[in-house]
């Protein structure tokens, strides 16, 4: 293992360009924030952060392009740095794009709605988003437990700060504290599981673990079970899968709305990315004669997914607070997002990544859009309760229309991105003949109609207390409409995206090659 000691070369920095850009922007913006006099609005930091995100995105795009040219040239379309400590491949790149795009949308939306009296540390608020995304990106593209863990913690610790940013409200601090404790505990579980994995296989490299795990299963299955279940529990906490979800509504409600959106989309997506990395490289090989360990692991994921879907929508039924409602819907959606992975890779089901990333993308759009609307409405109504939406159809018809589209997508009604995302996942479920899981998914979808239409009910069927028009700040409005339009587009024409993903992503090179 230690035969060749690889070191980081200058050449390798090219592959780290997006990450470096983000780190550099963080530092520059931090200095700028210190240097700029107080009277200058901190929105400029926000625009800077946006710029950084876009720049990083450009580099990711560049990488994608590079990789595809390699593929055409017959070279393997991925690059392992330092023996897999960092990995540039299409799996990672695609997810990075999603994270960067989602964060950019969220930042853009927040530029219109963030108020200084609420978030006094506005400068930090904006530029700390960058290291958080950096953490997420690391989680998506590493082949080493340590790197993955550091990425996770980078994202986690930054998120704690961001959640607490709404310093004027006590609930923000409370949410942050709850998040710290939950996140810390989750990290401990994940780490504990990792330590067992390391111990059973003697490697922190995922590829090394994958090589040795089969042996470990044969030798001491109980230990491997424990290792994976600790990991699963840790991730379930991070992802807020039922019954590990209870913290989510509290944290989501207390956090500033853009951060809530970020947590729901990027933090969750990154956790999924890491889960994929680990599972596809290790759990997939965790079989030996006379054990059903592998099946059991996937069964556990399925059970968690089912529980999350049901508990999420059931919990959302009685919520009166828009953010809590969306938090619980996020629980359900995390369950849905888990399904493709939980279905395992089999003869009849190899499209797990397409299914996952398509729904993730759809979820990003509808979530970011919905939270942007919530932020706008909350600004007008001075409350994040659902009742703030009352009569929105009269007060801001176009925003109401956009929200209708987003809510339909959340509910999985055609023809929206959410619908097709769900459809693909369902198709996979049915193809692997996991009908019970499909039934649970459908049942939760039906219950969710009730949940999501509480928005509709408020917007269309109720008169608002005030009939004043709601003002929509331009950047936020832009985001709302980008999200709504993209949601519809994803419903009608999912083909380009899926073809593109399929063209780039490949199970063999992204998941199975070492």
């Amino acid at each position, binding site marked *: 293992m230690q035969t060749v000691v690889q070191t980081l070369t200058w050449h390798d920095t090219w592959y780290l360009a997006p990450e470096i850009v983000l780190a550099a922007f963080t530092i520059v913006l931090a200095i700028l924030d210190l240097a700029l006099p107080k009277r200058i609005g901190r929105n400029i930091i926000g625009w800077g952060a946006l710029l950084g995100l876009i720049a990083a995105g450009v580099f990711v795009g560049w990488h994608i392009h590079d990789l595809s040219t390699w593929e055409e040239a017959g070279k393997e379309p991925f690059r392992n740095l330092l023996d897999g400590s960092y990995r540039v491949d299409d799996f990672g790149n695609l997810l990075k794009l999603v994270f960067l795009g989602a964060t950019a949308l969220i930042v853009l939306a927040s530029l219109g709605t963030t108020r200084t009296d609420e978030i006094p540390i506005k400068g930090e608020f904006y530029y700390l988003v960058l290291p958080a995304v950096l953490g997420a990106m690391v989680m998506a593209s590493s082949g080493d437990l340590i790197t993955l863990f550091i990425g996770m913690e980078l994202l986690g610790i930054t998120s704690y700060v961001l959640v607490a940013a709404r310093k004027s409200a006590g609930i923000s601090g409370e949410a942050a504290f709850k998040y710290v404790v939950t996140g810390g505990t989750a990290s401990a579980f994940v780490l504990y599981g990792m330590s067992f994995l390391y111990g059973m296989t003697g490697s922190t490299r995922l590829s090394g673990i994958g090589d040795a795990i089969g042996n470990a299963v044969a030798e001491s299955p109980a230990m491997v079970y424990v290792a994976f279940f600790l990991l699963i529990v840790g991730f379930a906490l991070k992802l807020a899968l039922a019954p590990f979800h209870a913290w989510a509504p509290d944290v989501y409600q207390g956090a500033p709305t853009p951060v809530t959106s970020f947590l729901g989309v990027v933090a969750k997506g990154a956790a999924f990315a890491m889960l994929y990395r680990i599972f596809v490289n290790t759990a997939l090989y965790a079989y030996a004669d006379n054990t059903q360990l592998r099946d059991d692991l996937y069964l556990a994921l399925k059970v968690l997914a089912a529980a999350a879907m049901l508990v999420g929508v059931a919990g959302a039924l009685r919520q009166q607070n828009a953010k809590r409602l969306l938090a619980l819907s996020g629980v359900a959606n995390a369950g849905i997002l888990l399904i493709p992975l939980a279905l395992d*890779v*089999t*003869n*009849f089901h*190899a*499209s797990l*990544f*397409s299914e996952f990333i398509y729904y993730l993308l759809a979820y990003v759009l509808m979530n970011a859009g919905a939270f942007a609307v919530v932020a706008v409405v909350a600004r007008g109504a001075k409350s994040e309760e659902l009742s703030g939406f009352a009569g929105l159809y009269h007060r801001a018809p176009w925003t109401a229309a956009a929200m209708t589209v987003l809510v*339909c997508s959340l509910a999985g*009604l*055609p*023809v929206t991105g959410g*619908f097709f995302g769900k*459809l*693909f996942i*369902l*198709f996979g479920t*049915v*193809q692997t003949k996991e*009908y019970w899981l*499909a*039934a649970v998914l*459908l*049942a939760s*979808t*039906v*219950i969710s*109609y*009730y949940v999501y*239409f509480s928005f*509709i*009910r408020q917007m*269309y*069927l109720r008169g608002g207390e005030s009939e004043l028009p709601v003002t929509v700040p331009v950047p936020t409005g832009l985001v709302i409409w980008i999200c709504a339009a993209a949601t519809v587009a994803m419903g009608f*024409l*999912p*083909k380009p995206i*899926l*073809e593109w993903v*399929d063209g780039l*992503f*490949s*199970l*063999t090179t992204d998941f199975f090659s070492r």
Partner: protein
Amino acid sequence: MLDDLPILSMIAFLPLVGALVLLLVPQGRARLIRGMALAFTFAPLLAAVALYIAYEPLLGGEAFAEKLTWLSVPLNMEAGLSANGATSYRLLFDYRMGVDGISLPLVLLTGVVASMAALASVQIRKRWKLYYVLFLLLQTGMYGVFLARDLTVFFIFFEMTLIPMFFLIGIWGYFSRENAAKRFLVYNGLGSAVMLLAFLMLIATAGFSIEQTASGAALSFSGSYDVLAANLADPNAAANLNGSMFLSDSLKGAAFALLVVAFGIKLPLFPFHTWMLKVHTEAAPPVVMIHSGILLKMGAYGLLRFGAFLLPDQLRAWAPALAALGVVNIVYGAVLACVQKEFKLMLAYSSISHMGIVLLGIAALNETGFEGAIYQSVSHGLISALLFLIVGTLYERTGTTRIDELGGLASALPFTSGILLTAGLASLGLPGLSGFVGEFLSFLGLFDSYPWLVAVGVLGLLFSAVYVLRGVLGMTYGALPDRFAGLRDVRFVEALPMIALTALIVLLGVYPSLLTDAMAHGFDGALKLLQSAAGR
């Protein structure tokens, strides 16, 4: 001429175009909005009539079939993981439209009822624009359901009816409209979820087609009705696909059961009927016209097309149960209709009763029965649309539709009462009006196999006489309460749809060949399957 036009898509999407155009019209221009809505409602009706005229039963409407590859989703099948040695593996979503003897009558029905409902929408007093936009969207969904020839497309259209209907009930209904709308949404959502599960089961196992290309076999899955029908009818299909992947018999049974539940909710089948009572009583009359007149028929249509035709073995196995359920529906609905005090509720139960007859027709397993089921659907659509049109008129004038509060309306509103009586008579299956034909054919079809069930089922005809006369006579005969003395009979605008619907009901009753000729050959394929199923 029609061959060159994508007439089916035109029918389906004209209302959608109308809805989009309406969005651009300013809120205040009520007259313009209404006029455009009417135009975009009548346009597909005209197209449907043109289609009917051009339709040749023997061709089975092949001339109009439309197919467009909409989406082709790669399923990432890589070397070493592929089934059947296929090199590519895709999920296809084709946009397929088609019309045959089964769907054509229902398309016409949709056009007629929707147009009449549009005319009747003069009763709508608030939020015009939104109303008509939703109304048009709903139409696209309905047409699409009857025209789609792909399971996914069907599902999408099916769902598309859900949302506009939710709003139409929830915004323009009566007192507890929200409750009704919510129940409609969740119950029907459940139905379509169950349907989707069944559809996906079929697609993922039997919707395959294998195409040999230069680079190897290309395996694709699609919801194309034709592909599914061919595969399910082909005894070698399982061998063509990697054996374990194909639909096993027990799964077929499960899929059929799911379809029965899914479409049973829509139909509605006892005991899944309670949601529609709420809708019937709480929604605005033009909306109920659509709902009772068309949406319920989607259940019958779906059950016939996807349950009966795709899974004939299962239909055969289930036929006794379906027939029994149909009889339960008939008698249960009828007996309950006999004791209702609210006329709308009575009509709701009568719908349950009448849709039971549709089930009987389907369970008959012969062409007569199938034709009866479709005929009954069309006829009930027209009749219930007419009845609810009258209900709307009456409610507008009297503010109530309770049988015990009304009476003697024949004195004050002779025209409306006369139409009501006619509609009632049609509803109780009077020969010479359309209701009889459907009932007769259904009973006739089923009688061959289950005479005793039919004998019980005809009791429904007796009860229908009881409740219809009780309701209609209770409202129109007798002494006129003083407070209704000053009522004015219908204006011409209101009378127009009534006359049109009545005329159609009479026409279909007197000369049923108008529809049955179009239906001829529509069932040929299915019947062949059924016969071979019997042979096995």
